[in-house]
């Protein structure tokens, strides 16, 4: 008897939850539609300057044109490739440097002030130096993407390595574990959550680095489309690129988040 009542109440509870979720989704969708519709209407009626802000229908038309003349995909491919490579170098490189610092406490002490300086430095200011170093090409852009994330990754991951509970290491030491084994079985897995949380930050940082890099040197890519569109006063192109970047960056971020859920399932 009681069980039935509880079951009914539970069902009701779930239905209410479902309903609430549907409300949230519909409002989110509504907001999106409202935004684009408002933009379109405001531009058509000259409430905002269509030359500067363009309008969704034009942006969409441009998207279709650029897809059919096959130029857009190349730009997207280049920027996406640069971002992913920069992201990987920044993340993996930062983690490897952190490992090195963990391995040698002396090295970590020596490099500490330099890391602090490099970390506080606004790295995009190094853009010109990087271009001089690597030449005005894709490598410089990737280097910008990686540079932005590598230092902060090093610092955050090294701190995570450092803060692993001594007692976990002690447990392994009592079995006679080597330093490599201690790293592999205790320090690294204990730091997974931190490493993965840096991934999410690094996605954003790599996009910043790559877009800035493309502003400075590129002949192709979404950053180039933005800066070129700006120079020739083609704001449709700027808007289109921005929307594409927002879309791609979100996808990448979501991908990392899904990965995080899978990797940290059992914590």
């Amino acid at each position: 008897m009681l069980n039935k009542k509880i079951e009914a109440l539970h069902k009701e509870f779930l239905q209410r939850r479902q309903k609430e979720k549907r409300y949230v989704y519909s409002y989110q969708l509504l907001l999106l539609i409202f935004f684009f519709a408002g933009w379109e209407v405001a531009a058509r009626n000259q409430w905002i300057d269509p030359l500067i802000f363009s309008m969704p229908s034009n942006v969409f038309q441009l998207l279709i044109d650029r897809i059919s003349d096959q130029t857009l995909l190349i730009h997207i491919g280049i920027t996406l490739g640069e971002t992913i490579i920069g992201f990987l170098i920044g993340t993996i490189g930062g983690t490897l440097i952190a490992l090195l610092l963990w391995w040698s406490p002396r090295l970590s002490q020596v490099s500490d002030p330099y890391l602090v300086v490099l970390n506080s430095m606004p790295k995009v200011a190094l853009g010109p130096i990087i271009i001089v170093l690597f030449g005005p090409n894709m490598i410089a852009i990737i280097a910008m993407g990686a540079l932005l994330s590598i230092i902060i990754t090093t610092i955050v991951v090294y701190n995570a390595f450092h803060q692993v509970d001594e007692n976990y290491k002690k447990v392994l030491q009592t079995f006679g574990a080597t330093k490599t084994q201690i790293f592999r079985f205790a320090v690294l897995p204990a730091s997974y959550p931190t490493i993965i949380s840096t991934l999410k930050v690094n996605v954003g940082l790599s996009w910043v680095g790559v877009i800035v890099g493309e502003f400075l040197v590129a002949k192709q890519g979404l950053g180039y489309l933005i800066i070129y569109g700006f120079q020739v006063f083609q704001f449709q192109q700027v808007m289109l690129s921005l929307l594409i970047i927002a879309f791609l960056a979100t996808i990448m971020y979501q991908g990392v988040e899904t990965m995080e859920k899978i990797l940290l399932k059992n914590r």
Partner: protein
Amino acid sequence: MLTLTDIEKVYFTEKEAVHAVSNINLHVEEGEFLSFIGPSGCGKTTVLSIIAGLLPPTSGEIRLNGTLIKGPTEETGYMLQEDYLFPWLTIQKNIELGLTITNKLNDKNTKDALHLLIQLGLGDKKDAFPNELSGGMRQRAALVRMLAPKPSLLLFDEPFSALDYQTKLQLEDLVFSTLKQQEKTAILVTHDISEAIAMSDRICLFDMNPGTIKKIFNVPEHLRNKLPFQARHDPDFHPFFQKVWKELKDVEQKDRGAS
């Protein structure tokens, strides 16, 4: 089996040099169960870590079955106050980790470890993660992990102090009978005099500043072979408890007077 000769340990910190333990001489027979008691900070953990090879003594030497101890060996198992099971591994994987590191991961050892897990009432938990277990269960799992590579000397640093009283009593019996059955030699650090008497053959009372062994008590013969829970209810238990208690109080009073 285990011999400590003239062990000294000085810790160096930025502020000072701490003379933690001094002049420790001790011989432990095969199959013996020893307890260390004494005031907080008297160097019990330090001596245990030195025996485990985790900490080099400043001077003196330790021999285990005749060989000089220079670092951790697979002959020694060490259990901490908390279980420190790795939260990202299942109970079985946790247990196998010790075997992996000591290069003893084979079918027989894994089977023996799982058998012990079943004996300790955790047979159905081997695929569970540590956070799904109670404190007592986790400590039992940690015990299996320590025993899996089959060490002959076991070191316990207050293994029951984080548990509630009933779980502690149950675990004492379980650890006691498991060790007796496998004929292990063991040293237990504890704050609890009753626990020391109930479980051990001999009790080393530590003095402080620097830490030394002030006195070694022999637990009455017929208490030694009883399960801890039964020993606690033996008529001889209380008089002996009083005797140890008085000595420990003397030591603590002297320390308070000194500081």
